[in-house]
């Protein structure tokens, strides 16, 4: 029976010849990733056995360095866990620090064709590396950690064939907003990306898209493998892997073609993204207090380069805070070497250490009552980044950088 990428990976991982929509697949997990919040408060339960410590990575990301006493205690508990079970892949505060999904990709911990679990909703990010990856809840994560298995309900798959290339100041975030606006949510469905545009889409851009798959409510988001991906993985992880391609006659719920060169910068209005996005021009002029660029979706080197290009030789508007949080310290260092950090700081931005930070309202850029923010991160839910009366618009790094300079929501091509 012909299968999509997701179906093929789930079939392999569950030891079945095939799986089909509607099946409950019990699968072996190749990589379980724990984050700092995995060790926090009411979610944490003392683990007595770990199925296979070599299939575990621990990445502190939500509040690094520790933001307060509670997060410090959480980190301490995580370090004790790492020591007790001999976890080798551990990313503490330091030069290897970063958001787990970014760290997993830049080390290719998750190999094409494999299954990954992590207790953060944006785990689907690793689908850019041709993985079946999704966020689990805390009990689910402990189940995967201690038994080596988890379950997935197999959903139908929507295929997006991408053609052409992005125009100036248009990026993967705009493509995501286009999909959320025009096709709505994908609850209980998988999303598969492919098409002739792939050679022009960097791994960073693909990761932005698969990460935002969580915001479509997709079960899994994945990319068809190509030479760009295979070279990326081989440069980072010597382990052998078997990328999975869809069968030519695989059954999709829908198949859509999107021409990248016909997209324009978009912005999501506050509170949700599903069918709540407009062309930037329709929201232009809205005054802002804060502009944020960061998160697992938009803290990539591509994103920092684009933000620096927009603000170069300009100044952040008076009364506006532009906060930039790289996705990992490795990205931070690369952005330093490339000059992007200097350009951003010269324009008036504050560049923070790599962490989830302001994206989830944790620290380093929390919003106050009545404030308006435009963010290039993952979510614009009410109260997400701080006070519930704050309004959060969501857009690409280029649009956020342009808005920071203008002091109001602005089109990145018309500064």
């Amino acid at each position, binding site marked *: 029976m012909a299968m999509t990428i997701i179906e093929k990976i789930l079939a392999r991982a569950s030891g079945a010849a095939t799986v089909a929509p509607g099946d409950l697949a019990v699968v072996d997990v190749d990589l379980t990733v724990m984050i700092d919040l995995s060790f926090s408060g009411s979610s944490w339960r003392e683990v007595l056995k770990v199925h296979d410590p070599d299939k575990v990575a621990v990445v502190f990301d939500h509040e690094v360095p520790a933001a307060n006493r509670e997060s410090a205690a959480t980190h301490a508990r995580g370090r004790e866990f790492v020591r007790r079970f001999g976890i080798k892949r551990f990313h503490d505060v330091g030069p290897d620090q970063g958001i787990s999904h970014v760290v997993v990709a830049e080390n290719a911990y998750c190999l094409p064709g494999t299954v990954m679990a992590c207790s953060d*909703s944006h785990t689907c990010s690793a689908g850019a590396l041709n993985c079946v990856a999704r966020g689990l809840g805390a009990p689910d994560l402990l*189940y995967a950690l201690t038994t080596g298995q988890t379950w997935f309900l197999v959903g139908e798959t929507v295929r997006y064939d991408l053609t052409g290339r992005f125009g100036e100041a248009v990026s993967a975030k705009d493509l995501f907003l286009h999909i959320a606006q025009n096709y709505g949510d994908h609850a209980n469905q998988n999303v598969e990306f492919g098409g002739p545009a792939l050679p022009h889409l960097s791994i960073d851009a693909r990761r932005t898209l698969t990460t935002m798959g969580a915001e479509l409510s997709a079960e899994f988001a994945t990319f068809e493998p190509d030479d760009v991906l295979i070279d990326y993985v081989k440069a980072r992880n010597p382990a052998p892997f078997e990328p999975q391609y869809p069968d030519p006659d695989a059954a999709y719920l829908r198949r859509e073609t999107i021409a990248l060169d016909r997209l324009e910068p978009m912005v999501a209005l506050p509170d949700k993204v599903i069918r709540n996005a407009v062309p930037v021009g329709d929201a232009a002029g809205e005054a802002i207090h804060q502009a944020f660029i960061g998160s697992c979706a938009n803290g990539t080197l591509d994103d920092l380069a684009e933000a620096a290009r927009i603000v170069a030789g300009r100044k952040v508007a008076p009364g506006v805070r532009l906060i930039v949080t790289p996705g990992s310290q490795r990205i931070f260092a690369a952005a330093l070497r490339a000059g992007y950090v200097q350009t951003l700081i010269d324009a008036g931005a504050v560049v923070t250490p790599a962490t989830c930070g302001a994206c989830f309202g944790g620290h380093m850029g929390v919003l106050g009552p009545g404030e308006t923010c435009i963010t290039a991160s993952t979510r614009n839910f009410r109260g997400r980044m701080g006070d519930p009366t704050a309004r959060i618009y969501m857009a690409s790094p280029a649009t956020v950088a342009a808005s920071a300079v203008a002091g109001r929501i602005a089109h990145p091509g018309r500064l």
Partner: protein
Amino acid sequence: MPSGRVWKFGDDLNTDLMLPGPLLRASEEVQARAVFSANRPGWVDLVRPGDIIVGGRNFGTGSSRPAARSLRNLGLGALLAESINGLFFRNAVSFGFLAITCPAVATAFEEGQTAEISLDDWTVRNRESGAVLQARPVPKSLLSLMTGGGVYPVLEARGLIAPAQPSGASRSGHP
């Protein structure tokens, strides 16, 4: 056969509304008191044990935070929604909260009416109007977790995790 008074919510209800980020490390009691505090302040004071939430599309979109646990801890009997985010559904399974997908449920109920759910034939009946809807069956192995207290007891019984500390995981309001 769970039945209860219906509270109606719309489409795309997200986890941050059910469990605000600043409370991620708070006690379960404090978390439960904050459910929908930004979009429907005071609602938690009106909820009675066994009440049922009727949602629209894409219920529970958002993060992995244990929002389903807060609904359980409020004493709600079930969630019925046109569609349910997969991660929220997983948390409902693994924290032991009944969450059922039921197409057309949002238009079949007015707030305050009574929903009767049969887990035998997976029907949902509006006691007042008499309308009967067909829900999507939850696979047996997942249903037994949902109605049996979730994943933690399973892992405890297998000696894989330690029993809960009394201070960290109280379940006030859980029926």
